[in-house]
């Protein structure tokens, strides 16, 4: 189950699986879309349990970032592993939203 923690106008989403990849995307996408539609100011994705993000997962994060930015909000990723941090830097994700490691 995807954990959702609400703090004022900030929502933290903590995916329960160890991967944000094509196969796991539908459930997470639905959850994130619903949160974005609420008009939150900040959506934080907590990657504590996540060990793999593929290009589909990166696409979902960019999509959420684009939607939030249009509405004046922002996306942040926290607790990324060293490998995911490296991937995000390689793919220039840090130019779009805040990314921090463990």
């Amino acid at each position, binding site marked *: 189950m995807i954990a959702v923690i609400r703090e004022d106008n900030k929502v933290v989403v903590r995916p329960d699986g160890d991967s944000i990849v*094509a196969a796991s995307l539908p459930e997470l996408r639905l959850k994130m879309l619903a949160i974005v539609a609420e008009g939150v100011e900040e959506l934080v994705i907590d990657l504590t349990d996540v060990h793999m993000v*593929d290009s*589909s997962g990166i696409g979902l994060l960019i999509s959420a970032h684009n939607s939030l930015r249009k509405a004046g909000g922002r996306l942040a990723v926290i607790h990324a592993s060293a490998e995911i941090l490296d991937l995000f830097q390689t793919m220039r994700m840090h130019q779009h939203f805040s990314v921090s490691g463990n």
Partner: protein
Amino acid sequence: MRCVVPATLQAVEELVADFRRRTQALLNRVNGFAAELLLREALTNAVAHGSHADPSKQVHCFLRLKRGRLLIAVEDYGCGFDWRAAWSTPAASSDCSGRGMEILRKYATRVRYNDRGNAVTIVKRFVEEKHK
């Protein structure tokens, strides 16, 4: 390791899990991540784009890890794609898709497609390989 799997994302997950089990004692964490990422991108592309996730279609996969060199060969029965155009046109930074090929370009040592674009061969040479 040679296998034929149905063109489903579930089959991708099962194959990747098997690959992870077989290689976890051979690759350190960083190299294991790169290997799995390359395999995922090749398989997901064959399933989602090459086969439109049609479970009646098949995806062929050959994997070999030997002396710090990983070979991934994936083929689907789709009509292929114009990989030459895709290779030379990276996704715009705000695009929500199209980053699979960029990942292959950044993480693989060598990537080759057949002319039709329905078969890819990826080679990854690992600088440092550790045994646990």
